[in-house]
């Protein structure tokens, strides 16, 4: 304590740590906000410089890069790649804002990705399969909710368990049903093509995309609306920041947290279903086809400061980098793929080091019992 008297002790996610009751939560968020802005501006500045440089010297690497960035296919790929991550990130926001850190998003994506294919295969209906994936993910989220709210399990460890259970269960089921960790191929969700608009350079990609991309847009907007405009959104925020304030205001904190976690299950389920149905197959080898997207989602919403739109933009940044490197590789300009892949992770660590403590919701990670304290 003596070392950082003015530091705002936000809640950290450590197992079993108690938040400092003498905390003055004033300094942290302001500090992090300005740093975040700085980073966002730096990103925009870099992009602008790249495009200008590319326009000025079209025949250099800058020119190629600028071409790739402004290519319609790049945007299209970025949108596609960001769907599962962004859905999971939205889900993570609902859960964590309500005070429950959901590190099991990865598991929710895995279970829904598999179930969507399975149900599609059995019923033949792609959208029934999509719904099946959402249901599976929601059920797993319900398990997580019961365990953390009723049985006061440590949220981080329980989240890890959710991930590991799904990581085992999905390939297990695939093996039982299809005799292999990978499922056979079923139909895909296809894409919606808006005539004329889809012809617009670059932004045309927005009008020729998979239905899940449009669902994502709706989900981002709806999430924003819930948090900013509805009473329930306020309760979620209060439940994560100061559950006692909510409790004394006559709102049942446990119920709000249950709903928060279940919504995270629904949203992550949509992401997982969209992921597998986009390809029409679930691949369950190693880390499965989800391959860390749930963890990147956590990073995305932290980076987006728990704002649905911010989280979506952060996801687009990560997915955009990924899309650009894919395109570059196709063109034979090899920046090593493995190194580009890690850029988001490095960025997160640098951001954390600069911003210091991420401003988690004040009470995130803590069990809350009505009448306690």
């Amino acid at each position, binding site marked *: 304590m*003596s070392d950082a*008297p003015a530091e705002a002790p936000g809640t950290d996610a450590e197992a079993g740590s108690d938040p400092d009751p*003498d905390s003055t939560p004033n300094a942290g968020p302001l500090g992090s906000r300005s740093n975040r802005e700085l980073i966002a501006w730096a990103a925009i500045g870099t992009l602008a410089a790249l495009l200008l440089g590319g326009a000025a010297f079209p025949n250099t690497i800058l020119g190629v890069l600028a071409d790739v960035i402004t290519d319609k296919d790049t945007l299209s790929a970025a949108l596609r790649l960001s769907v599962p991550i962004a859905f999971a990130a939205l889900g993570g926001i609902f859960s964590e804002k309500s005070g429950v850190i959901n590190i099991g998003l990865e598991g929710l994506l895995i279970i829904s990705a598999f179930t969507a294919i399975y149900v599609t295969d059995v019923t033949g209906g792609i959208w029934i399969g999509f719904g099946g994936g959402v249901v599976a993910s929601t059920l797993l989220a319900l398990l997580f909710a019961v365990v953390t709210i009723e049985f006061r399990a440590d949220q981080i460890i329980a989240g890890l368990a959710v991930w590991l259970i799904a990581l085992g269960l999905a390939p297990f089921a695939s093996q039982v049903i299809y005799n292999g960790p990978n499922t056979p191929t079923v139909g895909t969700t296809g894409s919606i093509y808006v005539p004329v608009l889809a012809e617009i350079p670059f932004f045309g990609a927005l009008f020729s995309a998979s239905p899940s991309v449009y669902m994502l847009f709706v989900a981002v907007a709806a999430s924003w609306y819930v948090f900013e405009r*509805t*009473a329930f959104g306020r309760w979620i925020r209060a439940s994560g920041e*100061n559950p006692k*304030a909510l409790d004394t205001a*006559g*709102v049942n904190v446990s119920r709000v947290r249950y709903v928060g976690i279940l919504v995270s299950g629904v949203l992550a389920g949509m992401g997982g279903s969209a992921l597998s149905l986009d390809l029409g197959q679930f691949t369950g080898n190693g880390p499965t086809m989800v391959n860390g997207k749930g963890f990147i989602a956590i990073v995305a919403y932290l980076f987006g400061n728990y704002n649905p739109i911010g989280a979506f933009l952060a996801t687009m940044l990560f997915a955009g980098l990924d899309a650009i490197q894919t395109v570059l590789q196709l063109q034979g300009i090899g920046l090593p793929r493995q190194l580009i892949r890690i850029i988001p992770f490095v960025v997160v660590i640098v951001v954390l080091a600069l911003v210091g403590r991420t401003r988690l919701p004040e009470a995130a990670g803590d069990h809350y019992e009505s009448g306690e304290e």
Partner: protein
Amino acid sequence: MSKAVRLEGITKRFPGVVANDDVHFEVERGTVHALLGENGAGKTTLMNVLYGLYEPTSGRVEVDGEKRRFDSPRDAIDAGIGMIHQHFMLVDPMTVTENITLGNEPRKWGGLAVDRTAAREEVTALADRYGFDIDPDARIEDVSVGEQQRVEILKALYRGADTLILDEPTAVLTPQEIDDLFGVLGELTAQGKTIIFITHKLGEAMAAADEISVLRDGRKVGTVDAGDTTREGLAELMVGREVLLDVDRPPAETGDVVASLSDITVDDDRGVRAVDGVDFELRGGEVLGIAGVDGNGQSELVEALTGLRTPDAGTVEFLGADVTDDSRRRRTEAGMAYIPEDRQERGVVMNFDLVENALLGSQHSTEFGPNGRIDWPETRAHAETVIDEYDVRTPGADTAAKSLSGGNQQKFIVGREFERDPELVVASHPTRGVDVGSIEFIHERLLELREAGVAVLLISSKLEEVQGLSDRLAVMYEGEFVDVVDPTTTTESELGLLMAGQDPAESDDPGTAESTDRDDPVDAPAGGERA
């Protein structure tokens, strides 16, 4: 006319503690009533009973003349009681309006949206009615603590509170904000609201309240009219007039200077100045007592001395060396023993047994941890010595600290620290929450150390303790030493005056007559006998 609130014979027992003992308490409607007492006197417990957080073991709660039973704060809120906690129940990233309306948001569109215009208008109207100057759209984290407090008050009013309980409302405020708060309280009572104001600061009780009730050790020791009482009288009521310790104390044979603090200035965790330029020297063989109401900078001063906190200015010298930048460990190794005030947080590791706890602070010493390897047999022997010599009642050295009673934990800590063979002992509230037998024991040991030439710094809010044990007695008020006096020639009422921050010159000056006059009414109306 019925009282706004009437508590009759309230007793609240916790396992092993009686927090409230047959307390009668009533509040006139439309007045400010201060509930005054030291920390731990049972003020907050009593108000939690009224607010439905605790069910009393026995006794009766009446609101507006009607007997009530509150199972939860919600029942109390429904009965028109609102409580403003010391730690605000506010959501920092949300706006003033959002906080005030939380859980009762006006809706529109069939409940699908919060009617933000209506909410804002309602809040503005409420604030205007009570003359609160507040921006309904500001975020809580961006407004001052004083404004946050007003938001809390508005939140209670928005929910229809007629009686407001404020728990230590001034603890976090600046003097200017305190004045503003008192203005707000006046406005509220003028409009018929009733205020109960929990505090341990007697000056504020006198300034803000119409009536003052004093609690001590869970019992109410008196209710006085703020108009005809004095600070000294209240101070005496608060700390009591227990019999002074009858200890045989030869005059101090002081040795060399052991510790010397100059111009120590410390800001607390909120950035508020807690210690403001304190100087003192402490010699071997003397006990320097620091008296004062809790929260006047004693804790921060002690932490700066013992190395738990870096002072913002000033130097700490120990045994002739400047140790201002030395770590806690180096200070301990140099011979500084420290009995911390929060024993279960700092003094012992609750989950360790007594052998492991005997090692705390000595794990790197040559005696118990030579070359980084712990000598457990030696440590065990040490733990057993402490247990034997300091009368720690425990089944054995392998018992976890958490299974011991508070008094025995404290005796163990005292023993461990005294057995360090220290040059200086810093004892912070060494007998708080300890049974009478252990108190005597700890006092005797402290005096033994003094005779052995050890320097002792004793911090306590118990007057009889610091008065009975100290050779010199410093009184701390708002981060400063108001005066350093000879405890044998200073009366309790003079000390009470000093603890309330009165100019010390008055008692030293030839013009003592004035202060004697002042003393006179004290003994009469405010005596402890009334309890």
